[in-house]
């Protein structure tokens, strides 16, 4: 159709490199909020996403915490899922093939109770095709054993990360807990031990009370706070860490729009994850990619890498 002139647009470059993982664009979906991808197939083209980060995976199946597991809070929500998952074997056999077939860039989020668990998981996944990298959850506040400890003590962080690095050649992204006094020292410990990238933030420990019932709402008492409410905390931590470490950062916490994504990128994130936002708008990830692209075009920015950390003073 020669009379339908397409507006001349210079192509903008959205691709980024997250510690050795090449992403088409910086928009990924956060672990635990996107299932294994197929849950969103009507809403998002999985191969269009920067990456799909799958639900936290453990060596053995876990049945998770008793209900109630979630509760809405102002501008956010608390969850205490308790790492329910079918275990790494079922993941590899039943969920991985689907994601591979869809052409998704796959990052597997792993969690364990011991240093050995993590190393074993990394070793098992190292052999699998189609996995672009690992995201290591050392910060899940909902598991009683391990979890919290790893993420809050620099020495433990080093041990876990070193163990994983020895067991895999895959790029390793270490996901940090925000529930610490000094996020920078934890970040540095992870990098010293060989982390190829850092992911922050995981959920903030919180709780809600059922006033009429006079008891905690969640069966687990405590849960992890996510959503827009935590965005200022997350942006702050990305900024603090980006100033001090050299590895790329995967930023997340309350992203609901491309402007939120840009806040993280300007604060120093190389890529971002959308979590709770997927629950509110199941097609949000693809929308954010489109909006980012438009934003860059309108502002004459040819390459998104120009913006990474541009707000750091």
């Amino acid at each position, binding site marked *: 159709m020669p009379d339908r002139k397409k507006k001349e647009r210079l192509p903008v470059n959205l691709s980024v490199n997250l510690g050795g993982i090449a992403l088409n664009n910086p928009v990924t979906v956060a672990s*635990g*909020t*996107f*299932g294994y991808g197929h*849950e*969103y197939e*009507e*809403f998002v083209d999985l191969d269009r996403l920067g990456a799909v980060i799958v*639900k936290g995976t453990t060596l053995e199946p876990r*049945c*998770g*915490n*008793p*209900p*109630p*597991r*979630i*509760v*809405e809070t*102002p*501008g*956010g*929500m608390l*969850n205490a*899922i308790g790492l*329910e998952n079918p275990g790494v074997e079922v993941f590899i056999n039943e969920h991985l093939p689907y994601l591979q077939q869809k052409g998704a860039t796959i990052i597997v989020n792993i969690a364990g109770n011991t240093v050995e668990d993590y190393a074993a998981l990394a070793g098992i996944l190292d052999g699998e095709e189609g996995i672009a990298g690992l995201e290591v959850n050392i910060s899940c506040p909902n598991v009683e054993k391990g979890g919290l400890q790893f993420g809050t003590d620099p020495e433990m962080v080093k041990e876990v990360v070193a163990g994983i690095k020895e067991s895999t050649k895959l790029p390793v992204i270490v996901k940090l807990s925000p529930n610490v006094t000094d996020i920078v020292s934890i970040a540095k410990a992870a990098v010293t031990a060989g982390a190829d990238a850092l992911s922050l933030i995981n959920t903030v420990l919180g709780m809600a009370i059922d006033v009429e019932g006079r008891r905690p709402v969640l069966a687990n008492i405590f849960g992890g706070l996510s*959503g*827009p409410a935590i965005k200022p905390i997350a942006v702050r931590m990305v900024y603090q860490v980006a100033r001090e470490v050299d590895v790329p950062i995967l930023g997340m916490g309350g992203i*609901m729009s491309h402007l939120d994504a840009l806040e993280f990128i300007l604060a120093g994130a190389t890529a971002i994850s959308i979590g*709770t936002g*997927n*629950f*509110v*708008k*199941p*097609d949000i990830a693809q929308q954010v990619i489109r909006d980012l692209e438009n934003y860059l075009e309108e502002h004459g920015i040819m390459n998104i890498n120009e913006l990474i950390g541009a707000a750091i003073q």
Partner: protein
Amino acid sequence: MRKVEQALIIRHREIVPRYFELEFIAPDIARDALPGQFVHIRVTKSLDPLLRRPFGIYNVEKKIGSVTVFYKVVGRGTKILSDFHTAETLDVLGPLGRPFSIPPNLRRAVLVGGGVGIAPLVYLARVLCERKVEVMVLLGGSTSGFLVGRDILKRMGIDHMVSTDDGSEGLRGRVTELLEKIIDRKRFDYIYSCGPEPMMARVTEIAQEYGIDGELSLEEHMACGIGACLGCAKEVVRDGRRSFAKVCTDGPVFKIGEVVFRA
């Protein structure tokens, strides 16, 4: 197929105080919706309240592509919803969840509902009738005015009986007592139920006593509604083993006997 639709509201009425009937145009959802499924509605563009709210499908008019829900104002989200006007649009995700199943040889079904729990049974009753199943709907409410769905059942000519807590209409007492009163005579093949958990626990006992199969529709707080967050877990027994099921995708409809009720 599940869709997000910007649905135009064509009817929104307060039937009795705090009980609303809401009809909107959502052609894709209307086309695929089956009885027992639900829609997940975003009641504001603001970030507070953040999450969608789930409502059972009360009726569908395939010809005009409309979906109706029937809801009670119980908190902030339903209050905000009740302030929407006709001709405004609503962000609706659906149809979601496992629908009621209709056994191939089903002849005589009883539908037992309490309060707003009756909502999904109304659409089920209609579909069953269209499939020539003999239907009896038992409705329980606090008082005469609050028998959800009775008018629409009357209009559709579907058999129903009622109970009220205050005896202002029908049997004075619980809807499960009504079920016990008639179950012997009626020889139902299948029981469907939706309502407060104690009611469904009693329906389960009665069904098991009489050896009748059936299904229940459950509620649990939800985030995603599509099986991704694992937030809506409910304990179920399958093959004799206890595990957590997702109310949004493994349910909201479960087989009688699968569901673990706590006293």
